[in-house]
């Protein structure tokens, strides 16, 4: 595995300044943002600057059967970049160049370490937008978000990362460099490699270059907030809006616990006696169509007994959004630690899911605030805990098991956007079955025969 010989070779490949071996430094690569999973200190951390170096590292790792863990910004919420069995961490933070913006073909070509927000700032100059916007976009890398197939607040209307990837360069676990796709809008050559590599969580290949699809940034938008005394009314509003063929860019929900906590901590002026609130934003290229969509939403809110406020200015919009932005921070202040889950159900089951979560909270005597992307059924039940309280931790694990059980029973999924990693690997079979797991194993085995790339994540190798 990793000995001085291995490290010397790393220094030759990457240059001494791009290899970290000091214990104190290594400790800072032992975690990501996932609570409650094991931490492990890597044997070495390297900072590549180009594809060739990565290729050389793979040859070295294959010879010595050393596991490799790619790492973007380490904001992952399922344990993806954690070096479970020591090995090498490849940090992409220095491979962060935007190689090209092509406003006529509506593409951007980037290195994997580019921060999502930086890409968006760069393309904004051309009036363009790269829509995937995870809550972590000010920090997270394009490479990490491609590997996780991240979603975000705009998911309902604009989709998730996989809808915006047109091609990639990937170093395979065998050391071969493989490019596919390009700038053509249509490309049906060969298998659909985007579907294979996007969301592969660093287990099938190391992404070294990405061609992203851009869209014209919407020119107009209208935001509103609506309050409901009954969960059912909020849920019906969500389905009615879509049934009336309005697809808002953002359609967020917050439950009572979250609303009360936000109000308690951030004092943004929310009523604390309501059961749920919805934050809705419609956008588009035409003023009239955006107006029409907003009007339609208002009608539906009224029909469902909701009270509402519309933002007329940017300042008012900011004020409405303040509530959503404060959700996680406010919840995070209540107890020493927060566990943010990612259960997702079909849109029409949102209310059932919210009620189930509330019941689970009662059953296990836990504080759970739920908010999330109601429009796409992606909820973030946020469980507030004290990690030093053993009894509470046990109840937490049972509650999480039950949340996923319920989500699956509603025809939902284990993960809407945070991935499987190590955190949810034990539930995988419950969703895709034995044959699904077997298929994943075969794909992994075919591409990574030595199992050196991010072992222990996403693909359960043993029963």
């Amino acid at each position, binding site marked *: 595995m990793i000995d001085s010989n291995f490290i010397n070779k790393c220094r030759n490949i990457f240059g001494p300044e791009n290899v970290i071996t000091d214990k104190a430094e290594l*400790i*800072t690569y032992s975690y990501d943002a996932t*609570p409650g999973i094991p931490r492990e200190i890597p044997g070495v951390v390297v900072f590549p600057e180009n594809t060739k170096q990565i290729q050389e590292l793979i040859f070295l790792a294959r010879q010595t059967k050393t596991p490799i863990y790619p790492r973007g910004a380490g*904001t992952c919420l399922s344990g993806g970049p954690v070096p479970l069995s020591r090995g090498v961490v490849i940090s992409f933070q220095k491979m*962060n160049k935007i190689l090209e913006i092509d406003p006529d073909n509506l593409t951007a070509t980037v290195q994997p370490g580019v*921060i999502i927000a930086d890409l968006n700032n760069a393309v904004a100059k051309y009036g363009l937008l790269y829509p995937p916007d995870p809550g972590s976009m000010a920090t997270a890398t394009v490479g990490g978000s491609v590997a996780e197939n991240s979603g975000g607040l705009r998911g309902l209307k604009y989709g998730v990362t996989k809808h915006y990837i047109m091609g990639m360069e990937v170093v395979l676990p065998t050391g071969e460099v493989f490019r596919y796709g390009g700038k053509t809008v249509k490309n049906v050559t060969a298998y659909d490699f985007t579907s294979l590599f996007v969301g592969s969580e660093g287990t099938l290949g190391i992404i070294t270059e990405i061609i992203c699809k851009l869209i014209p940034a919407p020119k107009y938008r209208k935001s509103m907030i609506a309050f409901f005394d009954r969960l059912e009314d909020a849920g019906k509003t969500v389905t009615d809006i879509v049934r009336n063929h309005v697809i808002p860019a953002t359609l967020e929900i917050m439950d009572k616990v979250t609303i009360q906590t936000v109000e308690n901590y951030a004092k943004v002026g929310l009523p604390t006696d309501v059961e749920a609130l919805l934050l809705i934003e419609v956008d588009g290229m035409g003023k009239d169509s955006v107006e029409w969509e907003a009007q339609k939403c208002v009608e539906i809110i009224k029909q469902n007994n909701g009270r509402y406020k519309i933002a007329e200015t940017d300042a008012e919009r900011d004020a409405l959004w303040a509530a959503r932005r404060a959700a996680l*921070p406010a919840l995070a202040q209540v107890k020493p*630690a927060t566990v943010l889950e990612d259960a997702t159900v079909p849109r029409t089951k949102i209310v059932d899911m919210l009620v189930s979560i509330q019941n689970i909270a009662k059953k296990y005597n836990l504080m759970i605030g739920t908010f999330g992307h109601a429009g796409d059924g992606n909820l973030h039940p946020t469980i507030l805990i004290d*990690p030093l309280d053993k009894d509470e931790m046990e109840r937490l694990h049972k509650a999480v098991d039950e949340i996923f059980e319920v989500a699956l029973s509603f025809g939902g999924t284990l993960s809407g956007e945070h991935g499987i990693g190590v955190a949810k690997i034990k539930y995988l079979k419950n969703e895709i079955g034995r044959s699904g797991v077997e298929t994943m194993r075969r794909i992994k085995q075919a591409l990574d025969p030595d199992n050196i790339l991010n072992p222990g994540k996403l693909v359960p190798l043993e029963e």
Partner: protein
Amino acid sequence: MAKTVFDDISTLKKELLRCMKCGNCMSVCPVYNVEKKESSVARGKIALGEAIIDDKINIDDETLVKLIFNCLVCKSCMLACPSGVRFDRIILGLRAAIARKKGIPFVKKALFGLLKNPELFDRGMKAFAAMQGFFLTKEGEKIRAPRGFLKQFGKRFDSDFVLPELSKESFRDKVSEVINVENPQATVIFFTGCSVNYFYPEVGEDLIYVLKRNNVTVITPKNQNCCGMPVMVHGDIETARQLAKKNLDVFEKTAAQYIVTVCGSCGSAIKHEYPIILEATEYEEMAKKWAERVYDISIFLLKVIKFEPPKGKVELKVTYHDPCHLKKSMKVFNEPRQLLKMIPGVSLVEMKKPDACCGSGGSYHLTHAETALKIAQAKTEDIKQTQADVVCTGCPACMMELFEGIRRWNGNCKVLHTVNLLAKAYKKEEA
């Protein structure tokens, strides 16, 4: 006396737990932005704290010590932190624990000893003022650059490294201790801080001018001490506590209602750090009392007294740099801009990132020169693209760093304190 995070590192555990490792701090940390390493940013240092408490690494591990000191304590991360992690306590607590274990390095010890004893410190600074020609050559008006032999102490001291000339007479020596006005609307203590006292006396003079103009009686106690921030950030909490107590005693002896500061670091030391480091001591109440009475000059003028805006015209394009301790600690950022806009003739242009750190961080720019210079360079480029005639700020330490940056990277704008510009406008009005 109850144990605080500065006395017993295990009390940090609760604070460390609050960090959920979300990484939000990475988007704002100036050091991370340059180095791109986990250990540069709050999240990484918190993980190191956890490792120390869990006995996974020794607190005097050489690399660890280096990493814990590789931080500007600019508190940018705290503003971006969703869990409200009090990183200032964590970093100072860790440094205090390191200082306890390793002892404070010899040179620093000598300097800190001086700080504790204001007369000695004062004599030392004056001796240096007299001798500065030995270390530094004169470079134009009131500026000094290192002489060749200093280069052996690292390439930080190249000829682009500049310092304002030390005044032979300190500001507090020159100014009378009490300056009375007729019908005062308030009586204030002027807490000068070391940089105004020794490097920028003209900022002090202008402050007094502005306060007089607004009918405020100013007391500048001669025996006030350093605020303690420089020793605090090096982990010498004991010296910081002594300095704080001495200062509080000095405040108590006056008949002033308020303290005004012209330095973000001094202001935030009195406002935020004194109550923290004096927690559970007999000075706790006194610290809290004065914490509520200390104001940055801009807030004091606009929010506490009846302010008479100047009428003299100063035709200048001005940009404003937010000092970290002023914005992120004291939450003062609107008022200085408001003041600038009230000066007839001034047009305020904003930088792209006016609140990005300048890289100074007390002695950080000396100890971590390479990173600091990159931070300063980014700041300078941002200033240059505004094409302003003047960059104003509210902290003398930032003034030095901005000045050096502009000289190093060929900018041509002047660096002034906000009160310099205010005084200028008042003087114009009288002329």
